[in-house]
């Protein structure tokens, strides 16, 4: 039973990589529903919005108690998904929560900031400056999330089995490499 966690930067095509793997292995991709289910289960639905809000547009500041309940629910849900197996978990600190699970492959998808800004600008039809601002805010938010709630550095390479730079590799090639690594895990 294969389990893959994917950490990705905004504009790194990490979601495309996840979808490519999903189509090859017929695994579901779990991302947003993990956030929503955890928040609902913990009885703090507004924390889902605060979590999704990488750019800080909503201006939400959930209480420490609400955060604690949410993070506990995330951990429980992620353990459940992992136990069921054959799943791709995107984001939500899967590389930390499941780091001691021997059968789980942890992947990070990255790309140079300038390239990511170009991709976002093209994708959204916005200026490079605005795309760069989104990337800076998103990187900061994801870095802070890992540091604040899990006490690790997002860019610590030891958290990952595989780090893939999509500057010159397309999502299909990246997915192929990840599937090969998963196979070598014996899954």
């Amino acid at each position, binding site marked *: 039973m294969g389990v893959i966690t994917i950490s990705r930067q905004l504009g790194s095509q990490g*979601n495309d990589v996840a979808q490519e793997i999903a189509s090859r292995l017929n695994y579901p991709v779990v991302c947003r529903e993990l956030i929503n289910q955890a928040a609902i289960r913990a009885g703090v639905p507004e924390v889902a919005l605060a979590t999704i809000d*990488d750019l800080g547009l909503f201006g939400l500041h959930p209480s420490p108690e609400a955060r604690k309940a949410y993070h506990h629910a995330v951990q429980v849900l992620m353990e459940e998904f992992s136990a069921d197996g054959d799943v791709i978990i995107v984001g939500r600190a899967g590389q930390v929560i499941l780091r001691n699970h021997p059968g789980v492959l942890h992947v990070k998808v990255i790309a140079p900031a300038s390239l990511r800004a170009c991709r976002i600008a093209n*994708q959204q039809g916005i200026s490079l400056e605005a795309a760069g601002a989104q990337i800076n805010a998103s990187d900061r938010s994801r870095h802070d999330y890992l540091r604040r709630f899990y006490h690790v550095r997002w860019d610590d390479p030891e958290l990952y089995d595989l780090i893939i730079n999509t500057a010159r590799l397309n999502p299909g090639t990246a997915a192929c490499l990840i599937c090969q690594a998963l196979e070598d895990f014996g899954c």
Partner: protein
Amino acid sequence: MTDNDARVIITNNPNVQQITSIDFAHSSEKLFAQILDYYGIQWEYEPHTFPLEWDDDGNIIEAFSPDFYLPQQDLYVELTTMRPQLITRKNRKLRRLQEIYPQVNIKLFKRGDLRTLMVKYGLDQEAGLITGSEAQKREI
């Protein structure tokens, strides 16, 4: 009026709506909808009305329609300006709503300077051109 009657919710429009087809009561509501689209969060605009007070004949004399319902989060959202008088009035309504409908999750959002942030991130110029379902395909 029985307790069960008090829990009847009037549904205005159960369908998920799109920004372009909606006549928002306030520009900040449209901005908020644009942000929800950017994040790929499903939303409905004023889909439900909650009766809050009835007269002796059982007629509704006060009701409350939260601005948004977010089905994936099971959360209602009400936007308000920063004026303390209005916040106080809306807080009273929210308290009343939660007394009568304790199962309903609702969050009061104080309108900050959304437009400045949206311009910074390039969202104000383009968010109105895309639909919620298109936005959900994006990488975020």
